[in-house]
């Protein structure tokens, strides 16, 4: 069923009786041409592009919980491409460009709002870093620019700018195409579009083992029975190391909790995404008026989807440094997701272990913004058996060759 103004009006007139479920809840078949483990944004996008771009429709997405219930539904919904290295900008700007056309492509409103993002600097040294990243973005053909203090202060009029403020806003990096999107809608939109093309989306299906024959993936064991396939994509974030270990592949991935917070709804006060380099705290305001707040990682490796108090204290004290007027604001919700952090803060995309096995993991704290690109690239590898030019630099082999893509140093990612 195509969504349109016409179908909305028709259903309004006939009591909303004609809506169909957006996707089919499938049961696993015996065999597939390709199986993707992980029903988050990356896994669902991979299935969609396999069917749409490569014509592979005997495809299954396996999700141990419910689709979009992991980090896809737990992030702060920010989309941007303000990275330092050409390889990263190629990757994240591919995602941003695909996001820009995604509502139309999927016939599903992902509520993309390109309200711009300000990375704010408060010391001369931070301002120099901003200048360097802005220059790198322009060299890479992306729309970032350095913003001076006056213009930056106009963007966030409520920010702490009083005479007694300890650190004055000096300016920062502005990316006008950055913004936010509705995270659940990204998962649901890809699921609906993939399902319509014949992909099986199977929830409550946990992979317990990976079978290999003659050096090639031959199938998987799940709680819903065995499934044969000779092409397997892993897009399971923090659960990926455990899956890869079943075929003897060890990954450079630590798992940490990353927390986010939502406040009570308030009147419109912030119409951009704002990040303070000095504290790592960032926020945006949702359409409902809630402030969506994020920050750095918990510093304790974990697989539990909940955060600890010291990280909360750090993020929220950073928030009050930005906006002292939020001291009376109540938080409605707080939650944590398990993120897969790689030493160079760049993802791992490529083959690993037995033939037919491909990874899409290591996105750390920034996977949501990359979903359309991660899906495009994993689908390309599963369909063709070879790297896409954009995924090649992110191969696991970079840890052997030493060609790391260190965005922790390059763009100041806070882990």
């Amino acid at each position: 069923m195509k969504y349109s103004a016409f179908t909305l009006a028709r259903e309004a007139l006939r009591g909303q009786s004609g809506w169909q479920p957006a996707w089919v809840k499938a049961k696993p078949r015996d065999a597939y041409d390709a199986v993707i483990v992980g029903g988050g944004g990356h896994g669902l996008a991979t299935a969609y592009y396999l069917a749409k771009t490569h014509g592979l429709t005997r495809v299954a997405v396996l999700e141990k919980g419910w689709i979009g219930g992991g980090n896809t539904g737990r992030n702060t919904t920010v989309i941007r491409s303000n990275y330092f290295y050409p390889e990263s900008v190629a990757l994240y700007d591919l995602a941003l460009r695909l996001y820009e056309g995604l509502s139309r492509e999927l016939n599903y409103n992902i509520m993309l709002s390109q309200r711009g993002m300000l990375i704010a600097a408060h010391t001369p040294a931070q301002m120099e870093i901003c200048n360097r990243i802005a220059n790198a973005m322009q060299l890479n053909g992306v729309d970032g620019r350095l913003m001076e203090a006056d213009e930056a202060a106009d963007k966030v009029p409520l920010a702490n700018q009083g005479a007694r403020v300890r650190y004055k806003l000096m300016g920062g990096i502005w990316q006008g195409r950055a913004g936010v999107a509705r995270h659940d809608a990204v998962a649901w939109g890809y699921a609906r579009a993939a399902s319509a093309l014949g992909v099986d989306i199977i929830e409550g299906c946990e992979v317990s083992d990976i079978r290999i024959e003659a050096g090639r993936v031959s199938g998987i064991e799940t709680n819903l029975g065995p499934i044969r396939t000779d092409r397997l994509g892993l897009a399971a974030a923090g659960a990926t190391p455990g899956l890869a270990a079943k075929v003897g592949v060890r990954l450079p991935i630590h798992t940490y909790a990353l927390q986010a917070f939502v406040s009570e709804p308030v009147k419109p006060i912030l119409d951009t995404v704002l990040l303070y380099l000095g504290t790592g705290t960032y926020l945006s305001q949702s359409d409902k008026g809630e402030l969506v707040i994020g920050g750095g990682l918990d510093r304790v490796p974990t697989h539990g989807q909940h955060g600890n108090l010291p990280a909360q204290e750090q993020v929220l004290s950073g928030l009050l440094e930005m906006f002292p007027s939020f001291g009376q604001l109540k938080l409605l919700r707080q939650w944590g997701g398990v993120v897969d952090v790689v030493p160079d803060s760049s993802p791992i995309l490529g083959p690993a272990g037995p033939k037919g096995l491909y990874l899409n993991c290591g996105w750390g704290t920034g996977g949501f913004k990359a979903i359309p690109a991660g899906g495009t690239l994993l689908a390309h590898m599963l369909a063709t058996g070879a790297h896409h030019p954009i995924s090649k630099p992110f191969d696991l082999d970079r840890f052997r060759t030493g060609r790391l893509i260190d965005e922790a140093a390059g763009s100041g990612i806070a882990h």
Partner: protein
Amino acid sequence: MQTFPCPFCGPRDETEFHFAVEADHPRPENAPSDLEWAAYLYAVDAPQGPAREIWLHIPCGEYFVMSRNTRTRDVTASEALR
């Protein structure tokens, strides 16, 4: 707020500690290949459940082995490295 046990200072606030590395990853002997050396430098197990990790207690400057559960965050043991 969680407390972690330092083998030298006793139970202290978690903010005093820094995770260093997973324990029990021995240095490869003889002449390792590039792949073996990269695995030694970078590969981790990130186990779900019981784990043995090397932590630093920042105030006293000692590294030690802490056994914890990575799902529940329960600490089961803490021992000096030497």
